[in-house]
């Protein structure tokens, strides 16, 4: 998955917008279950450590951030996937630059959080809530700390994160901005970029 110089974000986007019967479920980026995701995540961790892409401690943080995002997709869509279960997970490295993409064809953040906060109306409100409020999409279970962890740690490793769900996009680095976009993503599309 490294050094192929292809745009994995484009592949991920295609993977989530294609009709279900055309989606490439044979893709090596496709993780149908959580076990497959965890194995590939561990493989990424070991590759990054071997290639000394970043400090060891930063690589652990990167792995934890990607792990939270990928597992969120499984947590919030279990038994409820609209069509294809599982996630797209890919990464590539080029001259110490690292890009990780995660995507799912799930319910999206708005529909998930409406369960706990019915007054949410827009994708922008939903993303803002997900990244800043103590709330769980699986209420009454007490969850909902994962994206706050992601937000804090993106700052620590000086990364950029784009999180798209519905027609909203959150951009995180030292700050967070959320805006409406022209696309409309059914599930979630997340891109993490780390420069040298």
């Amino acid at each position: 998955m490294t050094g192929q110089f292809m745009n994995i974000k484009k592949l991920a986007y295609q993977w989530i917008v294609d009709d279900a019967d055309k989606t490439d479920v044979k893709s090596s980026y496709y993780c149908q279950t959580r076990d497959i995701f965890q194995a590939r995540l561990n493989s990424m961790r070991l590759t990054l450590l071997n290639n000394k892409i970043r400090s060891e401690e930063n690589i652990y943080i990167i792995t934890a951030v990607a792990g939270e995002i990928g597992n969120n997709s499984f947590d919030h869509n279990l038994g409820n996937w609209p069509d294809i279960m599982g996630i797209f997970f890919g990464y590539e490295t080029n001259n110490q630059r690292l890009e990780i993409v995660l995507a799912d064809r799930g319910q999206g953040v708005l529909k998930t959080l409406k369960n706990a906060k019915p007054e949410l109306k827009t994708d922008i409100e939903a993303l803002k809530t997900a990244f800043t409020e103590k709330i769980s999409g699986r209420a009454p279970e007490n969850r909902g700390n994962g994206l706050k962890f992601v937000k804090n740690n993106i700052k620590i490793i000086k990364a950029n994160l784009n999180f798209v769900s519905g027609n909203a996009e959150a951009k995180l680095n030292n700050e967070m901005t959320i805006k409406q976009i022209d696309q409309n993503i059914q599930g979630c599309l997340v891109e993490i970029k780390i420069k040298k």
Partner: protein
Amino acid sequence: MRIELKKFGEMLISRPSGREAFLAMSAYLIKDLKEDELIEIDFEGVKVLTPSWADEVITKLAERFKNVKLLNTKNSTVQATLETLREYSGLKIA
């Protein structure tokens, strides 16, 4: 009682695996222990920890026992996870 988390893996990430770990602890390690028993949670050897896994284990151990100590918490993901649990899951252990 010292609980060595590395025995559950060096990458502790998902909620289901955290839940399974807590069930295993409940059956074998902490069964019959009184609530004032000293519980030492040892993070030595853990490489990657997330709030999802930890919320199913650390938060629950802290709710069940009054005297919990955290050992070898230097790893960056352990530090970041504990900070998140303190802020968002009501974890009160220093």
